[in-house]
């Protein structure tokens, strides 16, 4: 499996990271190096093996479905790059 610049561009788009066109060949090259390394996994016989979902054999805890927190608007917004009138502000989303 070899990654070309189109695939690299698609992955960058999916990851929402801007990559300039001139940097795509180097990026594709790095991906190929890493994926070549990962490719070894194809040698392993995994027939009938369950994919791991939890490393410790314990059941995840449940709690009552009740409100335990809230009313912290200033704290929630304190680190926002742009907060106005109690909201996070972002560029126009819908044309």
């Amino acid at each position, binding site marked *: 499996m070899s990654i070309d610049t189109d695939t690299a561009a698609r992955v960058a788009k999916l*990851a929402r*990271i801007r990559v300039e066109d001139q940097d795509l060949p180097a990026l594709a090259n790095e991906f190929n190096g890493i994926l070549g*390394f990962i490719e070894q*996994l194809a040698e392993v016989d995994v027939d009938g*093996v369950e994919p791991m979902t939890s*490393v*410790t054999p314990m059941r995840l805890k449940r709690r009552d479905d009740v409100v335990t927190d809230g009313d912290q608007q200033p704290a929630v917004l304190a680190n926002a790059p742009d907060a106005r009138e109690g909201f996070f502000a972002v*560029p126009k989303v819908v044309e």
Partner: protein
Amino acid sequence: MSELSKLTLADARDRLRAKDVTSAELTEACLTEISGAGALNAVVHTTAEIARAQAAAADARLAAGDAPAMCGIPIGIKDLFCTKGVASQAASAILDGFKPEYESTVTSQLWSAGAVMLGKLNMDEFAMGSSNEHSVYGAAINPWRRDGDETRLTPGGSSGGSASAVAADLCLAATGTDTGGSIRQPAAFTGITGLKPTYGRCSRWGIIAYASSLDQAGPMTKTVRDAAIMLGAMAGHDPKDSTSADLAVPDFEAALTGDIRGQKIGIPREYRVEGLNPEIDKLWADGAEMLRDAGAEIVDISLPHTKYALPAYYVIAPAEASSNLARYDGVRFGHRAKLAHGDGITEMYEKTRAEGFGSEVQRRIMVGTYVLSAGFYDAYYNRARKVRTLIKRDFETVFADGIDAILAPATPSAAFGLGEMSDSDPVQMYLNDVFTVTLNLAGLPGISVPTGIDSTGLPLGLQLIGQPWQEGALLNQALVLEQAAGFSGKPARWW
């Protein structure tokens, strides 16, 4: 140089309780060391005011006779831990200016126990790296140098600042986190002790996430006893982390009997990788001999899927990272890129993330995105999770056969020079984790103990891998190794 910052945590505790020294004195000694150690770039945000206030409170508790073991002990905190009102940016530009409104569970437990925060410590960005070179603060520097050579060496990573600070006696101990070796490798590179507990022993709540199924916090200390004391304060069940184990926290220090007679220590033959550095091979054989002399039985064992641990890790960790790091979008916290006229929200995401994330983080997010993308999920991600099941089964098999712990090298070499790996491809850097990453995949506890000095004068560490939840037994085995090796090296001061 003040002698007070050189104290072990255990000695400081005893002297504090004996009223032989105050927390204020210990804290000032450490702050003085920190202000003189800028060249190490280990402490990236000093919190002197908080430290002095906490020290005064600790002295009051000590005077009142209400003093848990960590009371009055000045420590450093890896920048990955959220600390309320104090910069916590995972060494990333994307969290520039971020000051959490909350405190991580682990640090909160440490402060409740009376510990004193000296500052935040350097690391690889988002804990991704093995050399602390991928940091918005610049590289942390190892206080150790090769004999007669001023080359600046890496303290390892990702907890490089923690390792450097403890080794240089800027603090009595530090917190670290370990996703693929990030506590144990830097500990080995700097001649200190580093413990990665069983997955679930310490709460992950408030620790900035890298790969959630692998991340675990642990202590980085000057001795094995110190690790036992500090783990006791860090560990425990937390309702805010659904993967934290609802188990009582044992008295880890009480497990340090020094008696390992009759225990079986496994030597995994697959760890004797091709081209293994002869100095590491000898260190390993010497370590086995020390444990045998202490009455343990040394057993040759096989962990057949070892070879596949690194490739499995470099699928699973980036996959989880690509999901965890999706939250850095320029909306809720940290950096937002300046936008051009007409830019919409997608441009905001793309520019913010391109500016805010360093190259290694971008690389791992994109690899993770790729292995999770339609058409490749089964071939890469699901296959890696199946291999992970097999790796864990390898360990379960040897433990079921009666093995108490496993002895292995911590690293393939001593600390390397800054920049020495930067020209090689990323995979070469990843190979640093070859001995450490297996037990993150299996969720097991591991400890790195300094046991020797290489031919250039640098410290080397051995690693013990324990059974799940058996940190007490593991620390005891490590104590035997520590006592037999008698490692007492300290870096000669140049900073």
